[in-house]
C-alpha cells in the first residue's frame, strides 16, 4: 500500500521545480553571454511594448528526467505569460543537456503560431545553430522567426489599465455620484449612531464600494474618540491627574468598537491585497510586494493549453 502511494506521489514530488521568473530571458544554464541575453531581452521587451504580447525565453541545464512538455506546461502555468483574456504569451524553452527545445504557445496565439509553424521554426531555423552549440544565435533566430510569424498584433495594445483609484472614483454619471453620496451618508450615520451595525455596514460596503466603507470606518473612529473624550471629561478614569490604567467597565464598549474597527480594517486590507494581486492568500501578497520592490517582469495571467512543438538536436 505504501509502495503504491509512493509511486502515486513520486512523479509530482520528484518533478523538477519551476525557476523563478526574473526577466524575459532566464538563463539557468549560463550558456548566453551578457550581450546576447541583453539583446534578446531588449527585442522581447520592444515586442511587448508594441503588441502587448509577452514572450519569454528560458534556458535550463537539465530537465532532470521530466519530459520537456510536462516541464514546459508547468513553467507557463506558474509564470502565466501573456495578458489575461488575450492569452498571448509564448515561451521558448531550451534544455541544454537534454538536447531538447520547446515552443509553448498561449491559447491566443495558436492561430498564428501553429504547431506546424512552431515545429518548422525548431527544425529549420534553430536546429542548425543548436547542433553547432551556438545557443545564443539559435535563440535569437528562433525569437526573430516567432515574432515574424506572430506579426504585429491585429488589435492595438490596450491603454494601460486604469488605476485602482480612478476605476472606483472617476468616470461615472452624476446620478451615480448622487447615489453614492447618499450611501456614504447612510453608512457614516449608521456608524456614528449604531457602531456595531456600523461595523457590519463597513465590511459589507468594502466589497461593493470601498470609499463608503472608508468613510464609515472614519465615522467609527471619530465616534470612539468622542466617546473617550466625553468619559475622560466626566471624570472617571482620572487618578492623580493621570489617565488610569485600570479600565472602567463602561469603557469595555469602547474597546469593543476599537476591536471590531481594527478587525474590519485588517480584513479590508486583506481583501484589498488579494484582489489586487489576483491570487489567493499570502502567496499573492508576497508576489506583489516582491514585484513592486524589483519592478520585475511578471506574467499577466495568460492561459496555455499545450499548443506548440518540441524538438531535439
Amino acid at each position, binding site marked *: 500500500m505504501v509502495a503504491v502511494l509512493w509511486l502515486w506521489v513520486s512523479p509530482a514530488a520528484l518533478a523538477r521545480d519551476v525557476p523563478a521568473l526574473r526577466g524575459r530571458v532566464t538563463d539557468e544554464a549560463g550558456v548566453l553571454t551578457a550581450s546576447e541575453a541583453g539583446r534578446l531581452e531588449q527585442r522581447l521587451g520592444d515586442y511587448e511594448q508594441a503588441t502587448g504580447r509577452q514572450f519569454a525565453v528560458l534556458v535550463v541545464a537539465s530537465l532532470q528526467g521530466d519530459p520537456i512538455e510536462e516541464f514546459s506546461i508547468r513553467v507557463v502555468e506558474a509564470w502565466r505569460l501573456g495578458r489575461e483574456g488575450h492569452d498571448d504569451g509564448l515561451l521558448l524553452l531550451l534544455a541544454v543537456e537534454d538536447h531538447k527545445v520547446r515552443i509553448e504557445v498561449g491559447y491566443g496565439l495558436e492561430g498564428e503560431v501553429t*504547431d506546424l509553424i512552431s515545429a518548422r521554426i525548431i527544425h529549420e531555423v534553430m536546429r542548425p545553430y543548436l547542433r553547432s552549440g551556438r545557443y545564443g544565435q539559435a535563440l535569437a533566430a528562433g525569437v526573430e522567426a516567432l515574432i515574424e510569424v506572430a506579426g504585429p498584433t491585429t488589435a492595438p495594445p490596450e491603454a494601460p489599465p486604469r488605476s485602482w483609484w480612478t476605476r472606483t472614483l472617476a468616470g461615472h454619471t452624476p446620478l451615480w455620484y448622487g447615489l453614492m453620496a447618499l450611501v456614504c451618508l447612510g453608512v457614516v450615520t449608521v456608524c456614528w449612531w449604531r457602531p456595531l451595525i456600523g461595523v457590519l455596514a463597513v465590511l459589507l460596503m468594502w466589497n461593493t464600494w470601498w470609499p463608503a466603507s472608508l468613510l464609515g470606518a472614519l465615522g467609527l473612529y471619530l465616534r470612539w474618540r468622542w466617546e473617550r473624550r466625553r468619559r475622560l471629561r466626566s471624570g472617571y478614569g482620572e487618578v492623580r491627574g493621570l489617565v488610569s490604567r485600570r479600565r472602567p467597565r463602561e469603557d469595555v464598549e469602547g474597546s469593543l468598537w476599537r476591536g471590531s474597527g481594527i478587525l474590519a480594517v485588517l480584513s479590508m486590507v486583506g481583501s484589498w491585497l488579494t484582489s489586487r494581486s489576483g491570487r489567493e492568500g499570502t502567496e499573492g501578497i508576497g508576489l506583489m510586494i516582491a514585484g513592486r520592490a524589483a519592478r520585475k517582469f511578471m506574467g499577466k495571467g495568460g492561459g496555455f493549453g*499545450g499548443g506548440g512543438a518540441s524538438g*531535439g538536436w
Partner: protein
Amino acid sequence: MSKGLKIGIVIAVVLGVMVLSCQVIGYNSIIDEDEAVMASWGEVENQYQRRAELIPNLVATVKGEADFEKDTLTELTEARSSVAGIKVDASMLDDPERFQQYEQAQRRLSSSLSRLLMVSERYPTLQANQAFRDLRSQLEGTENRIAVARKRYIDSVAQYNAQVRKFPTSVGASMRGLDVRPTFQATVPGADVAPKVEF
C-alpha cells in the same frame, strides 16, 4: 424595543442564517465546480476531435508509400472508426460505463497512432516527405494538447468530486442532484504514451 423592530431583527437573523447555511453547504459553489468540469471536458473533447480529423490525412499520406505495413494502417483506421462510432456529449459524464467505453476507444486510437509513427521510422522516403513531417508535428502537438486537457479534466473532477463527497458540501450537491463524475485513470507509465518520435 418596538414590535416592528423585533420583527425586523427576526427577519434579518433568519435571512442571515439562510444565506450562511447556503454558503456552508456549498449550494452555489458546487455549480461553479460543475461548470469547471464541463469546461475542461469540452476541451478534452475538442482535442480528441482535432486528432480524429488529422487521421484521414495521415492515412492518405502513408498509403502513398507503396509497401507500408498494411496491418498497422488497418488497425489505425479501425480504431478511428470505433471512436467515431461513439456519440460524444456532456451526458457521457453522468454515465461511467459509456465514459469508460469512450476512454478505451481513445486509448486504442492513441496506441495505434503511436505504433504507426514508430513503424514509419523505417521508411526513409516517408521521413523525407514534407507533408508527412508536417502531419506528424501536428499530431504531436495535438497529443500534447490532449495530455494537458486530460490533466486539467482530472484536476477539475478531483475538486468537484471532493466537494460532492465531503460533508457538509455533500448536502448542497445532493440538493442540486449532482453526483460524482467519472475521471480518467491515472496513466500507467507507458500505457498511454503520446507518439514521441525523434527526427
